[in-house]
């Protein structure tokens, strides 16, 4: 037993394997492009301005924007002035979803951003670095006539970042500021049918709360959730890919244990990569359909993080195996300088993620990006997209499709057929990584053929001079496979 399959297989068979993998890759893209809808949907909501009559009646805590028990509505704030209603008596109510619709567990997650329509007024200008204090509460119910159950209640402070495009003259009064949207809420599971958000903007002049925030005309929310159709296609793909990677993993490890020597480091790393891919693949998300597991979003992030860290480590070890000295090879400790930072980086990302998504388990309105530390970290981490950038081998594909998905409108039309480009991107890339790991395991598994049987194998991308080297450098049978040695030679040159 010597050499990996990639070294011993005939060119023809290699092409066949490559062709089959390519077919699966194309299928992965087509699944997303033709079957799945776009991955996410953004639904705009405009909040209803309700008058809080709780003080007088003690009737209900929750104010509904529409429906049978809707609140006492205000058309605009001019009406509030004429009715002598104060800012503290106004509640912004948003019902999710819009009438005649229901939320579904297939949506997987919901995140909301907030947009404030602040009108310019000469004598009520927006202060520099103004902060808005929101008293927000979230409730759910599963029947149209059930009582609302509270999920969370919090008082949140958000920084307003607004610019005004026109000169600040009397003429421009009433124009809206151009404000950055604010992160508002994130929920990791959509287990209920109806949600209700009540937002209050309490004013306290003595404490300086909500003073100098201009004249607010409207509060708009945009709700983003994953499309149910996309979730279904995604789950189907996961369910299909899990056994295929699992089977090749078992097969790979059996091959390795059959050998007389102990597995080398690279082989172990490939196996670990297989494990992390399987970890991503296992479709535990099916449970989110039946259970209200809000930590699923966090769990998904962790799984993805582990895989990327593993992939990065694999690449470093793969390169290192060919460049380092003979005596330092084959030990993980030899790579601590390279793998260490990856581990530290991944750990930092994990902590950061825990800080946001972890806290959101308790308080869905929490956002790290609005805190002082968070905005500083955002310089550091937001651009620190190494997780995406390390996808070197598949980078070309990933980047091309990434750009395509950013530039285009999300779907292409070819006659009657509509192609969901964004979905194609997701399923395609996901399929690609699976195939990548699959191919890696298959090709780097020890070959059972005797070495030298397939000398016709000239398509390894090496020149004839090194081919000669190939035959002469076999010194010990159970050493690392030839490709590694060969690559090291190239690297040294």
């Amino acid at each position, binding site marked *: 037993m010597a050499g990996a399959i990639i070294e011993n297989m005939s060119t023809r068979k290699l092409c066949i394997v490559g062709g089959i993998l390519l077919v699966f890759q194309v299928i992965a893209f087509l699944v997303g492009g033709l079957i799945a*809808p*776009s*991955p996410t*949907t*953004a*639904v*705009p*909501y*405009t909040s*209803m301005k309700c008058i809080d009559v709780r003080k007088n009646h003690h009737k209900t805590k929750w104010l509904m*924007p529409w429906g049978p028990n809707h609140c006492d509505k205000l058309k605009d*704030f*001019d009406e509030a*002035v004429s009715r002598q209603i104060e*800012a503290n008596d106004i509640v912004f109510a948003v019902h999710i*979803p*819009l*009438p005649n*619709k*229901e939320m*579904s567990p*297939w*949506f997987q997650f919901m*995140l909301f*951003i907030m*947009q404030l329509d602040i009108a310019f*007024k000469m*004598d009520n200008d927006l202060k520099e670095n103004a902060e808005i204090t929101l008293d927000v509460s979230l409730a759910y119910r599963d029947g149209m006539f059930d009582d609302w159950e509270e999920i969370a209640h919090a008082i949140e402070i958000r920084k307003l970042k607004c610019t005004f495009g026109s000169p600040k003259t*009397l*003429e421009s*009064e*009433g*124009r809206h500021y151009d404000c950055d*949207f604010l992160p508002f809420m994130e929920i990791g599971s959509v287990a209920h049918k109806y949600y209700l958000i009540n937002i209050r903007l309490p*004013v306290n*002049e003595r404490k300086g709360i*909500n*003073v100098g*925030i*201009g*004249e607010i005309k409207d509060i*708009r929310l*945009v709700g*983003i959730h994953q*499309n*149910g*159709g996309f979730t279904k296609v995604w789950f189907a793909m996961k369910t299909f890919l899990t056994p295929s990677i699992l089977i090749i993993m078992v097969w790979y490890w059996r091959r390795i244990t059959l050998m007389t020597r102990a597995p080398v480091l690279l082989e172990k790393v490939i196996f670990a990569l297989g494990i992390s891919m399987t970890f991503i693949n296992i479709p535990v998300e099916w449970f989110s359909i039946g259970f209200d597991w809000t930590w699923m979003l966090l769990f998904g992030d962790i799984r*993805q993080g582990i895989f990327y860290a593993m992939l990065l480590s694999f690449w470093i070890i793969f390169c290192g195996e060919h460049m380092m000295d003979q005596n330092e090879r084959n030990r993980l400790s030899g790579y601590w300088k390279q793998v260490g930072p990856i581990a530290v980086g991944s750990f930092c*990302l994990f902590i*950061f*993620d825990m800080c*946001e998504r972890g806290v959101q388990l308790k308080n869905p309105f929490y956002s790290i*990006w609005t805190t002082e530390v968070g905005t500083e970290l955002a310089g550091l981490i*937001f651009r620190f*997209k190494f*997780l995406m950038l390390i996808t070197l081998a598949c980078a070309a594909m990933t980047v091309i499709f990434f750009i395509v*998905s*950013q530039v285009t409108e*999300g779907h292409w039309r070819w006659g009657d057929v*509509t192609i969901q480009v964004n979905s194609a991107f997701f399923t395609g890339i996901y399929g690609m990584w699976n195939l990548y790991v699959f191919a890696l395991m298959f090709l780097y598994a020890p070959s059972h053929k005797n070495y030298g049987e397939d000398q016709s194998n000239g398509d390894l991308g090496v020149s004839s001079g090194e081919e000669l080297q190939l035959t002469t450098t076999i010194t010990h049978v159970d050493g690392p496979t030839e490709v590694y040695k060969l690559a090291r030679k190239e690297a040294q040159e």
Partner: protein
Amino acid sequence: MRSSTFLLLSIVGICGAVLNAAAWSVNNFLMTGPKAYLTYSSSVAAGAQSGMEECKFQFGWERWNCPESALQLSTHNRLRSATRETSFVHAISSAGVMYTLTRNCSMGDFESCGCDDSRNGRVGGRGWVWGGCSDNVEFGERISKLFVDALETGHDTRALINLHNNEVGRLAVKATMKRACKCHGVSGSCSIQTCWLQLADFREIGNYLKMKYDQAHKLEMDKRRMRAGNSADSRGATAETFHHVHSTELVFLEDSPDYCTRNASLGHHGTEGRECLQSGKNLSQWERRSCRRLCTECGLRVEERRTEVVSSCNCKFHWCCTVRCEQCRQLVAKHFCARRDAAVANHTKRRNKGHKR
């Protein structure tokens, strides 16, 4: 926006009857809609109203200042004209209706916005859970078309022009929409990104259409074929001419009348008694020339009147609903257009006129 328009109007001096007149003309919109769409009627009315308010704002310092009668004129078949100004009125009112419907959609005012049955069987038509609904804008556009275009019952060139201008207004809403995106990948990275289109401030749509008004295209018809009276022939000529017009361009048929002078039959009041801006900081070139445009060039003189205005000042504002203001007295100089002769004798008369309006 509405409050500022209102503020401006009160400065100009048009108060009182404005709202009543508006309600009257806006009701025309409601009479046309199919009965099944009664739920939309209040939004349609509000939309047409906001369109007219925007029109008033945009034409505040022009000779033609978008009187309420402009909207009525367009709906009275007998008095229809197709000037540059009516093209703007058509566009802004259909844009206003579409805008308001779209906005009210996101407030939950209607049972089915982008998710109604009309989309079944089409792309994304597999329902809300599978792939979400279509944009509310499409809904707004559809309903606006239903209501506003139904006002146009004729089949002549004017009708075609009006329908075209309605469409220009709706396209303006779409053209000014802004694309916003949110990244929500791992740790806020952009590996997953969701984008959507959102409505611009209605003022921006007004500005856009004002620009289109300035560039409006006069339709040069083959007059002889038109006069021949053969409707099929004239329709052919119209279709031919429309071929060259871009779908985002406003189109008119007749040159505007002289808006300096009062013309009761056409429903404009002339510029006599109108306020204009002469001095003051932060005025645009257009505003600074308003006195010349409204008064001098119309053969009127500029009259300065000093009035004491009591206004609230040093206010402590909350984000909504003013509290605690002081009353300030200020001497303000305003400029009005007045007739060159017998200025004193006309003074009281003009005032009355201004009030009546």
